[in-house]
């Protein structure tokens, strides 16, 4: 049983091929009358980089919220390294590292202070200095959050997600807003993290990113999984084509650009 032992034993973090890191089984979640997630199932193997793709409102965020225990599913079963996100909250928090989109830090907190603070939350924190070096933040250690660039903030956010030495990291729109060079640096970083034995659930809008990094992806549409598999197997000819074909409701031949005269009406017709 993966994760049956205490997370303290994650030192023996292995890429045990047959173990399951994340298991989502027939997940359902609705808000009022709107069904946000409808019968979603997938598993992520330990050591895998798994991509969750989909347009805004497709149900990615709700799925992630249920996985990390921020929301309670209406139906279905979730296991993270064998733990129930709601029932085994305390244990789960120790072995799950989360990077949330648009999550900030207090403006006047410095990088080193944020690292020390978050390190104090975990039983076996990673070495702060090493992590800062790995994320190229060492010379920013005394810089206040407000003064960091977008890329530096993102890297700090990743550092904080990793400081508890998680077995599983959930990275939500990690590279949104990064310039192309910073994005490529982030990709290398994610591969390094995976190579250190961490399972990664990546939520992204960038198909090239998913193609480059993910072992497998799930494409969500209207709260359901529209496609699931290796990016190369899904991508015909590219993953982006598959994504657009699966999730775009606009009649073929019409594209949604600002030049399209009835852009607005097309947008409005789409279900949220």
């Amino acid at each position, binding site marked *: 049983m993966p994760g049956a032992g205490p997370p303290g034993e994650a030192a023996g973090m292995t890429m045990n091929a047959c173990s399951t890191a994340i298991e989502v089984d027939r997940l359902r979640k609705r808000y009022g009358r709107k069904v946000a997630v409808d019968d979603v199932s997938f598993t992520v193997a330990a050591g895998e980089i798994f991509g969750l793709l989909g347009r805004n409102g497709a149900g990615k965020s709700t799925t992630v919220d249920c996985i*990390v*225990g*921020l929301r309670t599913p209406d139906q279905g079963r979730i296991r993270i390294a064998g733990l129930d996100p709601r029932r085994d909250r*305390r244990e789960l*928090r*120790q072995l*799950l590292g*989360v990077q*949330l989109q*648009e*999550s*900030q*830090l*207090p403006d*006047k*907190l410095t990088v080193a*202070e944020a690292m*020390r*603070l*978050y390190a*104090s*939350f*975990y039983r076996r924190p990673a070495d702060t200095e090493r992590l800062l070096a790995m994320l190229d933040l060492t010379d920013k250690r005394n810089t206040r959050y407000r003064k960091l660039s977008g890329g530096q903030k993102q890297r700090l956010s990743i550092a904080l997600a990793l400081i*508890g030495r998680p077995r599983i990291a959930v990275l939500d729109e990690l590279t949104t807003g990064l310039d192309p060079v910073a994005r490529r640096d982030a990709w290398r970083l994610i591969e390094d993290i995976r190579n250190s034995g961490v399972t990664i659930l990546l939520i992204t809008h960038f198909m090239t990113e998913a193609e480059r990094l993910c072992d497998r992806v799930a494409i969500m549409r209207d709260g359901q999984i529209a496609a699931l598999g290796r990016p190369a197997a899904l991508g015909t000819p590219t993953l982006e084509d598959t994504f657009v074909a699966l999730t775009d409701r606009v009649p073929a031949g019409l594209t949604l650009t600002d030049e399209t005269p009835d852009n607005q009406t097309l947008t409005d017709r789409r279900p949220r």
Partner: protein
Amino acid sequence: MKMLRMLTLTEARLLLREPLAFFWGVAFPMVLLTVMGLSASKIDGVSLVAIYEPIVIAFISVAFGVQGIPVQIAGYRQGRILRRLATTPAGPARVIGAQLIVSLAVILIATVGVLAVGRLGFGVPLPRQPAGFALVVVLSAAAMVALGLLIGALAPTARSAGAAATVLFFPLMYFAGLWTPQMSASARHIGQFTPLGATTQALGDSMAGGWPHPAALAVLGVCAIACAGLAARFFRWE
């Protein structure tokens, strides 16, 4: 415990980096008391500085409790800091606890500062009923911090939290006597049922050597418990 200690240290450090909050909550009350102390006028034979000391002390708990806390909490919610903490072993409630601890501590320190200015600068005697005085200071700080928590629980953004706090500031401090230390009998009567009206009167009583009126303590206790309960009930983490 280690988490709460680190969060409290962090919040204290962040507060020290807010010179404006410090000026308004710590320096301004002392300056205001000094201005009153430099005036020779008296009301009913009592010096202005002695009349204003309880009012200024009430002001401190408004500055940190009602004006400081809601903006911090709403800002943390808006910046998704509470949500981020909810994914760590610390959880979001601990950081709120840390803010309450820091606010209460600063209120107590600033109160001691005001007493020192009054005593050393202008010879205002220290409270003759220290236990009663301390009880009222703690209760009124708890009531204002709880009120701040309630605003922070309900206000969706830091901006709206600040606006709500500003709107509340005026009636609260009016009944404390900030603008009219010598109120009409009817205003005074209504005032003793408001938290800061009760605070100034009870502080004045215990400075003069009497035990604070039970009604005043009850007003503060009810305010603290009711606000804290409502805040817990309606708190929005995101």
